[in-house]
């Protein structure tokens, strides 16, 4: 396994180059690039500029683990507005294009949102159809679309069984699960998601979570080993399904002081997780 961290974790005011230096120094193998979430990687960023990002990544001695985006929170495939859905598709297309340039084979997509306005049974077929439409493009580019489980935030595909049915309905080898072991909260157990989804997992986002909400201020998320995830079980499940891909740190809560220290601490925690010494 290899470890990565998102470029959206780079401390405020730091340049991409400074961030890459920190990522490398902290011991990561790669970096996850977030389309639309950082100033250096936007929808309007040209191919030439993306190639320049790749050069910077390579110069730092890193590789790109995957291309993620938070833009689908604003432009979900579940929207009633066809223009919003068209934009959602354009975002995925750009992710696929940039993934190819950046030399990675995986993208992260938050596929749909259930809201008070758009009910589950309406969101579901739209999301299935959208993934069916985009899958051939991803396949052609040699890229896998990893639909992320944002269980509590999305209110969609809340259990591994639902997610499995969703992927079965999409029915395309280029669409899988970008599993976030911190997003399951108190709706289930990360290790069971890993066991059930096994080879369909494209990448794993790693963070910890407080399952009893309201105990940790404004966020239920915390640093690896500080929350309620069963890390021994997660590690065993990873071994069981022979997952040997990227572990991508996604730290939602940031250090209030010495923000760079979080990179070192998280890298050390990932090393312990990979080693199995828990």
């Amino acid at each position, binding site marked *: 396994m290899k470890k990565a961290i998102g470029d959206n974790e780079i401390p405020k005011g730091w340049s991409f180059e400074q961030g890459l230096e920190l990522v490398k120094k902290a011991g990561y193998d790669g970096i996850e690039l977030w389309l639309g979430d950082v100033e250096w990687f936007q929808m309007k960023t040209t191919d030439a500029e993306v190639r320049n990002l790749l050069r910077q990544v390579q110069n730092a001695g890193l590789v790109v683990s995957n291309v993620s985006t938070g833009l689908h929170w604003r432009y979900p495939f579940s929207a*009633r*507005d*066809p*223009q919003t*859905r*068209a934009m959602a*598709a354009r975002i995925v297309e750009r992710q696929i294009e940039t993934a190819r340039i950046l030399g990675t084979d995986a993208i992260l997509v938050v596929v749909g949102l259930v*809201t*008070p*306005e758009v*009910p589950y*049974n*309406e969101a*579901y*077929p*739209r999301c299935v*159809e959208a993934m069916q*439409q985009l899958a051939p493009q991803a396949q052609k580019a040699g890229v896998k679309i990893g639909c992320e489980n944002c269980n509590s935030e999305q209110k969609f595909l809340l259990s591994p069984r639902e997610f499995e049915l969703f992927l079965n309905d999409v029915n395309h080898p280029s669409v899988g699960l970008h599993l976030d072991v911190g997003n399951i909260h108190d709706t289930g157990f990360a290790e069971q998601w890993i066991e059930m989804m096994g080879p369909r997992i494209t990448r794993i986002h790693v963070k910890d979570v407080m399952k009893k909400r309201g105990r940790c201020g404004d966020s239920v998320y915390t640093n690896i080993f500080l929350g309620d995830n069963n890390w021994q079980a997660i590690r065993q499940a990873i071994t069981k399904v022979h997952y040997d891909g990227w572990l991508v740190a996604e730290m939602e809560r940031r250090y209030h002081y010495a923000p760079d220290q979080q990179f070192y601490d998280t890298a050390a925690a990932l090393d312990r997780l990979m080693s199995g010494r828990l």
Partner: protein
Amino acid sequence: MALTRRQFLAGAAAFPAVQCAGWRRASRADALQFAACLVSSWESSALQREWLAGYQDALASLALPCNVIRPGGACRARLVIFPAADLSETADCHWIKALAARGSTVLVETAAAFLPVQAQERQAALAESHLGIRLHPARSLWSEGREQEAIPYVELTWPVAVRVRDYSRVIGVSGGEGIPLAAVEGLPCGARKRIGAGTLLFLGSPVGPHLRAKDREALHWFRSLCSSRSLG
């Protein structure tokens, strides 16, 4: 969410209408044999495709054969459904009127709430002058903070009384006979009127997408509509 005609068409260039389940291009002879005709006025539109697919699924579940035709096409079905209707041409209104006069039940779901104001106004003018149906400006049902309030269900009153989900924006509809065919939060958004030997049903909030989402009440309403006593 107002769309120009071009945007409406291009909204789903990636989703050709011919991929809709059950879509078939029928010959003129075929077109006369179907229980229902679905009217598609757009070459390719994400909005219409979704609304239309709901009716296709529902008709298939009732084992009722249907075909998809263009406005003005040959159709002798007892039920004609025009989902996401743009009604931008006088000829469309004349055709709808002629189908109803001949004895069909014509269900029109207006897409006006999702069109630019100019297109809404044109549709309202045509509907009033040719069909006697008055359309009011689009109203958004989900304003900021709505999440904490009641769901703006659409109450359909005929042929059975059911509640279905709203569809974010609604067009007020009046000019029908008797009680409104549909209403949401006190705003009439559906009208029913006899035209010759048939009936025109005009909805300002669609049922099609809810049929696609397999909403039970929407299916119950549609099943009732398809029962022979409700038609014509």
